[in-house]
């Protein structure tokens, strides 16, 4: 890849407006989930146990645990959310922080709209409020959401991203 190609998807701070949206679609299947689980090494959760991991792949086990269908692991939903942020910002962007909250399960086969919405562009309301020099990267806040076709938003979060400025 040459330099021009690498930067053609770069997003710059000056071009970002509050309210603008960016979307991608994903449909994680059972095969996708199995591939993800074999490639990642989840370390078992926060002081909890590994109980019930069958809910990620086995329909019967999922139903025993109160779920209509097997669910997508939270780490995979986080990866999908992260991906929309990195796709949106381009190679020179930097994720400062990413908060994700799981409100309902993501089920295998759910068609998901992954949505990023710009909610804040740093010192927009008050120039200089973030103390950044003009040449320093600009800070942008995004709301990030996975939306299923039942109109639910099972995963919601916020990301804080640094974008380069056009020189």
């Amino acid at each position, binding site marked *: *890849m040459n*330099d021009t190609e*690498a*930067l053609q998807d770069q997003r710059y701070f000056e071009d970002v*407006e*509050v*309210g603008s949206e960016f979307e991608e679609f994903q449909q994680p299947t059972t095969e996708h989930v199995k591939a993800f689980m074999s*490639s*990642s*090494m989840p*370390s*078992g*959760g*926060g*002081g*909890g*146990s590994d*109980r*019930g991991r069958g809910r990620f792949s086995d329909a019967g086990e999922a*139903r*025993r*645990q*109160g*779920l*209509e269908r097997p669910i997508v*692991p*939270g*780490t995979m939903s986080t*990866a999908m959310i992260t991906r929309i942020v990195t796709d949106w910002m381009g*190679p*020179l962007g*930097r*994720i*400062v*922080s*990413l*908060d*994700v*909250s*799981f*409100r*309902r*399960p993501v*089920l295998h086969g759910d068609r998901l709209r992954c949505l990023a*919405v710009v*909610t*804040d562009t740093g010192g*927009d*309301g*008050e120039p200089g409020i973030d103390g950044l020099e003009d040449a320093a990267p600009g800070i942008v*806040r995004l*709301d990030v*959401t996975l939306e*299923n076709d*039942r*109109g*639910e938003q099972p995963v*919601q*979060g*916020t990301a804080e991203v640094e974008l380069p400025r056009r020189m």
Partner: protein
Amino acid sequence: MTDTYLDLHVHSTDGSDDAGGSVEGYLKWVVAKRAQGYRLDGFVLTEHRRYEVDPERDRAYAELAARYDVRLLRGVEVETDIGHVLVFGVTPEFLGRFNLADVGLPYAEVFRAAWETGGVGVGAHAGRPRIGVVDHYEERAVDLSPLRLVETLNGGSSDFENARGHDLALAHGLREVGSSDSHFVSALGRCMTRFEGDIRTMDDLVAALRDPAAGFVPVRLEETKPGAEIRERPTVASLIPSTSRQGELGGDALVYDRSVVGREVHVGRLEVTPESVQAFCEALDERNPLYTDEEFAREHGPYGGLVAPPGILQTAQLGQPPDPKVEFGNNTFMAGSRQEYFLPIRPGDVIDAYAQIKEVYEKTGRSGRMAFVVRRTRYMNQHGEDVAATETSMVFRQTRPVADTPAGEGGEA
């Protein structure tokens, strides 16, 4: 006559642990939505279980609100034995009667006290399992006479849940309001209440809500555009019934080992090599040249050379922090995560991970009581600098098997 569109139920990072939207972020969002042609005059912050009498904060909010020309008011959302209740017109006298942090306040007294002290209570997200009044009415036939108002159009509820609330209001002559219940900036205004007349202050709002003759209706954001119609709200009968509600599940008392909270231990080490970065990028189809193209990274990158994708930290095989041995419910789910990146990670770095159980706490949700365990992991490089930190929140709760009937609405978390 002027109408006023207010979002009556909003959570912010200033006071709600599960919110991601800042007050100023919401204000900027109002400005952006107005520019798109929607009506949104203001909103009421209703943080969970807390309300500080704080003239300093009121002044700061008033100043911010004026800067963006938005009406910004404050109420509170408390938790009672019939679900959550929004209180508007909170006074020191009201606050003196309750400990707002209590998650099982006596509802009749809350509504009565709000009224007697010049305010008003609203049954929040009325149709949501456990935390709305409908369940309590259907299961225990609780006395509805202390209630005058219910929130039956809630931006965080499903259509089915909103319809349950609407049905209750129709059957018992309760007034209805709408609000977003937003925790994130872009959800603000998704649902609101349209008032006939000008509502500028909390006194105006309380007066309207207390007045049986005042005109107000729940509306959705898209219904605020000029010429848009306010549609009729669906009833339960008009929707396909759900078969997958989990219903009353109870839950045991939260038991855990408090002595491990806050004790940080070394849980693993990750050596970041050019080869491991390459393999990670190939596995995830990650094509950012900052990770693999040395010349590009040196010429164009902000760090003067190659860096590693932050996600590489997730590949570390980590041990566990001390186990708090939580005994609660029969199942665990991931409830949330937070990642913070402080410094670039570079090929050649040796990253040590330290983890601790940050906190264990309890709250009520749609499936009853839930316990949360938050684990924090800190990643430090060979220079002793923290490069990143992650927090993972696990929820412990009760679930029961799904019956072998066809699926209706999806599960719940």
